[in-house]
């Protein structure tokens, strides 16, 4: 074994406490980096899944002119359901499609009023398209009946249970107030807090007739087959509908949810900042240890120089020690990080303990699961090693440049 490596290993072993502290700090940084990255990626993935599975689907079809006004949830312009739904389902690459009639409303409870979003659905078509029906406590409303499912958080806030009657006020197409007395048949408790807090689901035909828009939908939600390019599918659906003589605009979920997409992009930048801060902390820690080590070992360095060791070799010795520490840290960080991440991927972390019902901008509630992202391991490992080497270089060079005679003088 070359002399420098033997010296480096011996030095590390000789100062075991310092070695453990330094590699421990870097290993902790690597573990933290792996877990934070895994959770942030998991949060983003869950947000997208929750949005697609419970609200938007992959594509949304609106009547021309609706999209620009969609924040106000107008009833017009709307799409004719019967004519359109089969046309949409006939397009290659469309796995499922369901009509929805969406309108703003107020739910009345005692002297309180709560703003809610009324969603008219065809339960059978909807269950093949979105996943609301998998999360119903009770049952779905029946077509034509004055029945509704309401978000579980809203129900709990208002102390409403299945079997209770509630009053909803909204507007008909002509702008007149419409009041609906509906019986609650089910509570919807999904992983998407927006749905749990704001949404009330009625049968499409009940809502359509009450609002003077029978047989119409404000949106047709489309799920794409596996591996479909959404932009390409949106183009195909648009062309198919145009050929069938129906004027409609097709949007991908990213177009319809530009705010969430922007939030995810912003978060990606801030994730990078978090990672940079973790690396900076590691860097300062290692630089500090190496500097102290160099100061402590002045006489040893002087002796080595007196015995003929060159400055470059001394710097190399310090770098070797740092890289060895880094390797040890990377190995430990990988092992612990992988084990902890396996737990996060399998069991997840309940973020409601941190945020409760607080709206953090993401459509996520309850448990967030980690994800495996091999690039993070590569990045964390490389960053650990480079950080160690960089942090050691300057103090090592300073120590190596000292005058041997001066360091040995008592």
């Amino acid at each position, binding site marked *: 074994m070359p002399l420098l490596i033997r010296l480096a290993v011996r030095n590390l072993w000789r100062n075991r406490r310092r070695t453990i502290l330094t590699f421990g700090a870097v290993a902790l940084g690597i573990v933290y980096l792996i877990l934070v990255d895994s959770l942030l990626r998991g949060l983003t993935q869950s947000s997208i899944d929750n949005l697609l599975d419970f609200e938007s689907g992959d594509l949304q079809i609106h009547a021309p002119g609706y999209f620009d006004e969609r924040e*106000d949830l107008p009833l017009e312009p709307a799409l004719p359901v019967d004519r359109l739904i089969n046309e949409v389902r006939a397009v290659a690459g469309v796995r499922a499609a369901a009509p929805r009639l969406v309108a*703003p409303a*107020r739910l*009345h409870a*005692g*002297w*309180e*009023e709560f*703003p809610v979003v009324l969603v008219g659905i065809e339960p059978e078509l909807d269950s093949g398209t979105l996943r609301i029906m998998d999360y119903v406590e009770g049952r779905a409303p029946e077509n034509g009946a004055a029945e509704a499912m309401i978000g579980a958080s809203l129900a709990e806030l208002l102390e409403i249970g299945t079997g*209770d*009657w*509630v*009053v909803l*006020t909204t507007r*008909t197409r*002509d*702008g*007149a*107030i*419409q*009041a*609906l*007395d509906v*019986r609650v048949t089910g509570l919807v408790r999904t992983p998407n807090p927006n749905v749990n807090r704001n949404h009330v689901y009625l049968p499409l035909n009940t809502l359509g007739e*009450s609002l*003077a828009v029978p047989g119409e939908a404000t949106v047709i939600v489309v799920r794409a087959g596996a591996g479909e390019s959404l932009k390409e599918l949106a183009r195909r659906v648009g062309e198919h509908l145009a050929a069938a003589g129906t004027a409609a605009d097709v949007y991908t979920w990213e177009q319809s949810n530009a705010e969430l997409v922007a939030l995810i992009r912003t978060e990606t930048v801030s994730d990078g900042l978090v990672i940079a801060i973790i690396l900076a902390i590691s860097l300062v820690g290692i630089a500090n240890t190496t500097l102290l080590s160099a100061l402590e070992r002045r006489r040893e360095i002087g002796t080595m120089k007196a015995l003929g060791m060159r400055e470059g070799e001394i710097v190399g010795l310090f770098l070797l020690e740092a890289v060895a520490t880094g390797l040890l840290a990377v190995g430990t960080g990988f092992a612990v990080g992988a084990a902890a991440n396996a737990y996060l991927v399998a069991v997840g972390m309940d973020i409601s303990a941190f945020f409760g019902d607080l709206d953090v901008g993401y459509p996520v509630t309850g448990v967030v699961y980690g994800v495996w992202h091999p690039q993070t391991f590569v990045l964390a490992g490389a960053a650990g090693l480079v950080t160690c080497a960089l942090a050691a270089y300057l103090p090592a060079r300073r120590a190596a440049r000292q005058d041997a005679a001066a360091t040995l003088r008592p």
Partner: protein
Amino acid sequence: MRRSGLQNRQALAWLSCLLVVLSGQALAAAGLTAEEIIARVDANSDVQSSHGYSTMVIRTGRRELTKEMEIWSSGDNALVSFHNPADRGTKYLKLGNELWMYFPDADDLVKISGHMLRQGFMGSDFSYEDTLENRRLTDLYEFSLLGVEECDESECYVLEATARPGVEVTYARRRMWIDRELFVPRREELYAAGGRLLKVSRVERIEEIDGRFIPTQVTMEDVLRQGSSTTLFVSDLELDVEIPDDLFSLRSLMR
């Protein structure tokens, strides 16, 4: 909410409706038509401009809020300025079909539109859009005379208003009890498109001012807000007064 209570209430409403219709058919021939009655109501309430003070008492459950305001109106425009300590300096300006609000603390001007219009005016049982309605009722509704009934110790014509086809209205149906002598609505019920009763207003005091009979105490009850009602008291009302033209402007709102 219990269904049985609702059904009972609806059944009672239909029964009273039937009685009113039967008595109305007998009386209609002897008196005025529905359109003539509404025309008399319009004639009594047709005021070019006004200035007065008002106190609004909002009751929500056991809570009671009092708001004091000064009101100027001219044609389709109106200005409301609050004087009670909690809202002092807050102003509303109605310019035709638009409603603006000025918050003195933030020195901010907000246009009330869209969903905000459906909320209660300063938390009261009157919605912002209730205060905005400019159009004549006869342009919005078709009226039919259901009969004559005793109401608040007066004889009242009972009129039913249903929205004219193709006309956008907030309330699809209204029922009004018009004082047979004074031609002032003493009571009004506002209904949803599906027939559900939404609001009831009662005129509790009528004063004769400059030869017109003006309601000076009105209570509005939002039936869907349990235990909630708002009473508006009007005082020192002057009719057809001179009001400077520039009073109804966004600039004067922020003054």
